[in-house]
């Protein structure tokens, strides 16, 4: 857990005092990722760097797991906090192994232990230990270097990590890959992480909570969904963008919207009975045909069932697309747009049909949550000040 208590930083500049962070109060629960988000100069990086005293706070306190860190000496504090920066900062004069094992060495681990730890970390970040440990940072690609940067921060298994735009300098394709890898690692490691970003999409993807900063103030601190559904003021709203409702598609799984109440036909059924089922259930467009494993193998369009006679097997058309129930709504919408359809069969990991999802169901679901979020936000407004 990281708790900031009235953390304040005032910089003395020739033009007078500048308040970079003004009485910041927030708490990141153990095992969660908190994204500090805002335009440049909003105080997010200053706030992050006050936690490991790269920037010395003017006033206020930082608690880590309920311990007041002002009682710790700076080096001890920093050795127990993983630190990842945008520029990566691997030491070019040291091998990958030397880079990764710096903190364990500083903490006085014995050689066998830190060498084994280096190999373990390399496996964790999916880089072959034998191929990489003896190489130098300049021989690695940017993405590989930042993985090493993350490994170095994790080396001594600190409970808390600070990440300052860690993936900001990596190309978009690699960034997405590293983000996914990192989230997967985090599921097991359960570190308490503060993460500075200026990218709203990254924040929504990575964050359990998002803290929006502006001019040294913490404007809103909430879960991504709450933030998108109920931005506190016009600044947050404009920062999130006009398509913020669309961004919520990332946060919702198909599973939450899928309708499991549906009928299917089998290949042996006649088109006549298929048409009856279509009418009975009120399906406007088509019905899904499944095999014995309940995998969708075709669709019978209403138009076909109306004009033709025979078995479903002979007249079935190709299933245009299916979506996994564990995918997010963004993928579902994307498939609908790509195939010019308004509904999708949903399958589980074994490819068995488990329901369908319609555009109407999605808009209703999203809209319903907007309405409730707004209602609770209005009711709970005094509490949001806390």
């Amino acid at each position, binding site marked *: 857990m990281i708790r900031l208590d009235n953390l304040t930083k005032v910089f003395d500049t020739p033009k007078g005092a500048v308040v970079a962070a003004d009485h910041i109060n927030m708490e990141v629960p153990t095992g969660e990722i908190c994204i500090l988000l805002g335009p440049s100069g909003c105080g997010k990086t200053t706030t992050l760097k006050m936690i490991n005293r790269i920037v010395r706070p003017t006033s206020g306190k930082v608690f880590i797991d309920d311990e007041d860190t002002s009682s710790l000496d700076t080096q001890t504090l920093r050795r127990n906090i993983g630190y990842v920066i945008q520029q*990566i*900062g691997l030491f070019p*004069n*040291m091998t990958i192994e030397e880079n990764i094992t710096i903190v364990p060495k500083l903490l006085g681990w014995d050689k066998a232990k830190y060498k084994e730890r280096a190999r373990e970390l390399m496996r964790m970040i999916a880089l072959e230990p034998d191929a990489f440990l003896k190489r130098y940072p300049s021989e690695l690609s940017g993405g590989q270097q930042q993985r090493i940067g993350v490994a*170095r921060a994790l080396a001594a298994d600190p409970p808390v990590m600070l990440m300052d735009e860690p993936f900001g300098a990596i190309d978009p394709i690699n960034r997405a890959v590293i983000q996914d890898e990192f989230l997967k690692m985090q599921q097991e490691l359960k570190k308490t992480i503060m993460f500075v970003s200026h990218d709203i999409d990254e924040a929504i993807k990575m964050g359990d909570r998002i803290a929006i900063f502006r001019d040294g103030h913490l404007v809103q601190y909430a879960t991504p969904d709450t933030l998108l559904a109920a931005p506190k003021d016009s600044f947050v709203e404009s920062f999130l963008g006009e398509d913020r409702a669309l961004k919520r598609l990332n946060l919702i799984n198909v599973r939450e919207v899928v309708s499991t109440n549906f009928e299917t036909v089998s290949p042996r059924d006649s088109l006549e009975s298929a048409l009856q089922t279509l009418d009975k259930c009120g399906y406007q467009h088509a019905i899904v045909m499944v095999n014995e494993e309940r995998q969708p193998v075709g669709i019978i369009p209403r138009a076909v069932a109306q004009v033709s006679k025979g078995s479903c097997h002979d007249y079935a058309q190709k299933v245009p697309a299916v979506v996994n129930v564990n995918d997010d709504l963004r993928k579902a919408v994307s498939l609908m747009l790509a195939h010019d359809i308004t509904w999708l069969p949903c399958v589980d990991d074994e490819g068995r049909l488990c329901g369908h999802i319609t555009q109407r169901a999605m808009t209703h679901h999203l809209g319903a949550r907007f309405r409730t979020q707004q209602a609770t936000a209005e009711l709970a407004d005094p509490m949001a000040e806390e």
Partner: protein
Amino acid sequence: MEWIHYAVSNFDVLIARTIEHIVLVGIAVGIATLTGVPIGIAITKNEKMAKTVLYIASIIVTIPSIALFGIMIPILSIVGHGIGYVPAVIAVLLYSQLPIIRNTYTAINNVDPALREAARGIGMSQNQRLQKVEIPLAVPVIMAGVRTAVVLNIGVMAIAAYIGAGGLGTFISRGISQSDPRQLILGAIAVSLLAIIVDYALLYLQKRLTPKGMEQVPACN
């Protein structure tokens, strides 16, 4: 080409004076490195101090060597070393300060701020940062400063023959006083060749001392 015959027939003298020359410059620049590098590191902590130190070092280099020897004769006479190798070594020591201090200062100051921040954020103390990160990264540039000092002072040391320091300058001073072009040319060529050879030798050393993983060696200071 008479000077070649002279060189061959006086080969043992040539070798002895070359060694003398190398030893004198080596001792002086060696001591200068031992003082200049710590000074260069120390002044990175204080910009005002850095300006003052570099200014003084620059002024010293502008003093002509002959004048510097002249100044030192009465001072060092007190301890009985007004002439000879002592004032020569001291002069070279002083001339070497500027390239060594300046390069050390620049190199340490130019260490990537991101690396500094990473080193701090990891929990390295100031000494650990210097030892493990800043100095290793600064070595190529510091070595370039040492090279400059050596090459510069091989020439200065030749002039020190006039105050009886010995070395290859003796050929030149005798060549002039005895109107003997053979000695004059031999001395001049030997000094130039020595400077070139030593420069290459130090460049090799510089490359060897550059930490692996840092491919780009600055070509010169």
